[in-house]
């Protein structure tokens, strides 16, 4: 009888097992890298109907976030401003700028400017801005340095793990609520000071961010 298999076939089972592991590894790495919010959402910067710059208005002019995002300290949603908010100033500056035509039309007609939404919590997640603002969680923790962005992009993943990183250890993040809109603020004594004061805030105000499922999925 002639040989059915060559000698090298003895190695084949081992080679197949190794290959399966390598393929599995690649698939796992690809999913964790590409199928999570850090890849799918971070960096999303849609083209807006008006080239509005936060770097100019919030950074250079130093307008407080709440001047425009009125709802942020009052309720769940941080409302995007009405066109009247823009016209407060733009009825006097850059009154004939072509870039602002959409805003002027909207102010005249009453139809809103069709801003494109960037940050989006899935509908099964309950999120509330005002509880975070009232407890001294700054915009910068969840939105990055908006005051340096000409075009807003999503800077943080806003995934469940991201929320929980803070809910498990709020003392690393909470600050005096008066400073929430100062995005460049860092504790003058660095991490140590932040944790010390953070612990004090957490204790004094009895801060207990929810970690149970029903806190965020209600």
């Amino acid at each position, binding site marked *: 009888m002639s040989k059915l298999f060559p000698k090298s076939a003895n190695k084949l089972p081992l080679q197949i097992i190794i290959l399966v592991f390598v393929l599995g590894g690649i698939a796992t790495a690809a999913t964790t890298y590409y199928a999570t919010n*850090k890849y799918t959402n*971070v960096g999303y910067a849609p083209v807006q109907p008006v080239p509005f710059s936060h770097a100019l208005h919030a950074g250079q002019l130093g*307008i407080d976030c709440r*001047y425009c995002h009125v709802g942020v300290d009052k309720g769940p949603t941080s409302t995007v401003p009405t066109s009247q908010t823009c016209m407060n100033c733009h009825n*006097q500056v850059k009154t004939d700028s072509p870039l602002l035509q959409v805003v002027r039309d909207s102010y005249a007609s009453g139809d809103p400017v069709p801003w494109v939404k960037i940050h989006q919590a*899935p509908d099964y997640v309950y999120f509330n801005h005002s509880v975070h603002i009232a407890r001294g969680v700054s915009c910068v923790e969840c939105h990055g340095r908006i005051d340096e962005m000409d075009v807003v992009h999503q800077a943080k993943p806003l995934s469940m793990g991201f929320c929980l990183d803070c809910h498990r250890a709020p003392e690393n993040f909470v600050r005096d609520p008066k400073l929430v809109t100062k995005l460049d603020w860092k504790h003058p004594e660095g991490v140590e000071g932040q944790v010390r004061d953070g612990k004090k805030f957490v204790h004094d105000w009895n801060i207990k961010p929810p970690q149970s499922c029903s806190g965020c999925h209600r």
Partner: protein
Amino acid sequence: MRYVYLTLFLIVVLGVSIFGFRGSLSTRSPLEVFPDMDHQAKYKPQAESAFFADGRADRPLPAGVVAYGRDTDMPAAGFLKADATLFEGKDSKGAWLTGFPSAVTVDPAKLLERGQDRFTIYCAPCHGALGDGNGITKQYGMGATPTFHDDAKRKLANGEIFNVITHGKGNMLSYADKLPAEDRWAVVAYVRALQRAAHANAADVPPGHKSELGIK
């Protein structure tokens, strides 16, 4: 076998070059890996709606409607906005109120602190932190913003200042959508405090603090 790994390597390189790296800016809307219940049949604030002709899920108020409980936390005073002192700044005879409405608690510390906070956010960009009309926008060509410290503005009744915030005046538009009635009164109180401070003299400084300023 070598060829298997070589092709695998090329596939990985191809994949990475197609999908790119994390965090790179993109104008494409985010990929939803499991879109299961991301979009439920409900409207969220400021959302779009295909049902209404103007495409808005937030419905504008029909003419003549008084939104209940929107402008104040005080249910009794807020009902139908019947309290003219609180919502219009006018007394029972229709004249501008010179004091504060009875519904507002004039607790100097709390009211002024709230007023300072709101003034800094909503008024200071134009009127300046001191109320002298030299806010940041003046440098960009908004020269029409007046100071609060001339005689005409000091003579305004509280109710008139409240009315300017509520309905705007000339080039200044309304701030009623940003400040509920109570907050508007707090801002009025703070404007008064600024005016008082700008015209203070040595006699107004409490005795204990005189030495700090180097006056006797």
